[in-house]
């Protein structure tokens, strides 16, 4: 790094809470919060956004269907800045061990001010469980949350992340997922953006029959920002990854898609597919997309696609000619565009709930 930047108010508040010589302090003092000059954050300038938010501690309200199984005092190590900060600045680590057939709902609400939290969700071998998360971020809040999820052999986890629009708040939700051999996981995000929201997912993929489906449907309302970043690392052979992300962005909104699939030399027979489709609702809407494949094995099937477009005027005219008012026709087109990833949710009740939620919210956004 070059010359260290003077810390902004938010960074100064974090530094004041960190002990000397802890890695988080060193990282923060040297590099600051992630900002646009860091490649992984070039389209999401977190430092600039949270530097303008009040640098006071806030309250994170955590409503779960049940108590966590264990609370550890010790945070978890990470090479990533935000999980490292979440670990160093949160007071405890809640650990949930899911039971077979369990659906764990987590409702997280961040009040004004900054909050850090970390969670560990364990999915023991052989079980099947669901994790349903819902995040709301109030005005002037900055929430930094890290979830570590470990899916053991032959276990199956279906995860849904709902993120409410937060026009005056910021959210960084980092998920660190570890898939054991033969583990299966499906993750679907339905996000509506914030002053800045980043939903970042890292998957350590053991292969050996392990599978992950990683999907997202994002509606970025006027003036909002939503960043969906994922990194899937295939470390063992015979692993599958299937990603489908859709982003719709309204006027002055910004959608970011960064998807990376890394296939190590030992991960032969990897089957990884990544698709991103964007729909811009206005000339002043922005989508930045960077799909990336990095492959060191020679016997794999890896594909990626990325396409951006606007509402199809021909389709709009056709629908209006049949009697649908323009607004209804637009909403139907947007809804059908976004429904595809949501329709891949296996649980019918959860799927119908998300589709209904999308329908309700679209009326407001478009």
């Amino acid at each position, binding site marked *: 790094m070059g010359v260290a930047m003077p810390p902004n108010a938010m960074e100064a508040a974090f530094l004041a809470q960190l002990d000397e010589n802890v890695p988080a302090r060193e990282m923060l003092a040297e590099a600051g919060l992630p900002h646009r000059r860091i490649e992984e954050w070039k389209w999401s300038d977190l430092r600039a956004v949270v530097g303008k938010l009040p640098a006071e501690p806030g309250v994170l309200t955590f409503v779960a269907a049940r108590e966590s199984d264990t609370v550890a005092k010790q945070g978890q190590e990470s090479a990533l800045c935000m999980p490292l900060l979440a670990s160093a600045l949160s007071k405890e680590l809640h650990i949930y061990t899911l039971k077979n057939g369990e659906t764990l709902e987590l409702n997280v609400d961040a009040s004004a001010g900054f909050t850090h939290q970390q969670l560990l969700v364990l999915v023991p071998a052989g079980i099947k469980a669901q994790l349903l998360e819902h995040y709301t971020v109030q005005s002037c809040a900055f929430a930094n949350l890290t979830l570590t999820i470990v899916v053991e052999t032959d276990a199956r986890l279906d995860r849904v992340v709902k993120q409410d629009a937060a026009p005056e708040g910021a959210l960084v939700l980092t998920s660190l997922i570890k898939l054991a051999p033969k583990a299966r996981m499906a993750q679907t995000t339905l996000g509506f953006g914030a002053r800045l929201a980043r939903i970042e997912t890292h998957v350590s993929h053991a292969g050996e029959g392990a599978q992950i489906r990683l999907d997202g449907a994002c509606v970025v309302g006027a003036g909002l920002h939503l960043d969906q970043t994922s990194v899937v690392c295939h470390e063992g052979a015979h692993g599958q990854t299937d990603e489908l992300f859709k982003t719709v962005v309204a006027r002055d909104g910004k959608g970011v898609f960064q998807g990376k699939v890394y296939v190590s030399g030992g991960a032969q027979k990897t089957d990884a597919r990544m698709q991103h489709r964007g729909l811009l609702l206005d000339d002043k809407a922005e989508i930045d997309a960077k799909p990336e494949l990095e492959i060191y094995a020679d016997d794999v099937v890896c594909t990626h696609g990325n396409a951006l477009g606007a509402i199809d*005027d021909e389709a709009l005219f056709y629908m209006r*000619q049949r*009697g649908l008012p*323009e607004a209804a026709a637009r909403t139907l087109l947007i809804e*059908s565009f976004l429904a595809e990833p949501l329709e891949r949710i296996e649980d019918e009740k959860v799927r119908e709930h998300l589709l209904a939620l999308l329908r309700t919210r679209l009326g407001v956004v478009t």
Partner: protein
Amino acid sequence: MLVIDNLQVCVKMEEGKGRHILKGVSLEVPAGQVHAIMGPNGCGKSTLSYLLSGREGYEIIGGSMMFEGQDLAGMEPEDRAAAGMFLSFQYPVEIPGVPILTFVKEALNAQRRARGEDETSTPQFMKLAREAAAQLDITHEMLKRPVNVDFSGGEKKRMEIFQALMLQPKFLILDETDSGLDIDALKMVAEGVNTLRGKERGMLVITHYQRLLDYLKPDVVHVMAAGCIRETGGPELALKLEEAGYDKYAGGGA
């Protein structure tokens, strides 16, 4: 029912320039009649269908088009649809992700709401859909598919007529509905259209060839060339054109 009077239209182009595409078209379709418009490619007949249904990109520089006493020019496409105007598209548009039945139901109810009528009930709608589908040899599986996606040319045209049967418009414009149809599909589509014939309903059939007219038997045939109606007559005019072609109308000027 439909009265077009000396309609003159430009296609909007860049830098404010326009290309004169209809040069004073007049025709009148009373309720209960089927009129055909025939003409060579580029004569302006498809433009007329888009104008009547409200597509953007055209500028009316003179004349008028009235539908049941209402001036169509000032109406949005959806308002024209609610008033009873239906265009069967020459190239029906694909709408991925929207199942055909969902689409037709939304459209029908939007029209009904716009007219101040109650929404249709699901059982009633499904009964109507089954009957219309059976008439056009449309399978249940086809009705579940997204609108026009992965349909053949003939299937798309059948779906247009299916929608017309469901929406029961007062006025039908068929824009080259015969193109891309084999003889069996043509017969089936024509039968579907014929069930819609009635003394309350008008139709404008736009076609290049006479073969669809064998089945539809229009009351009046207009020949359009170079943006004008050049000749108007009975069904025998279509037969004459089939033999002699459009050569005698080449060169423009009324």
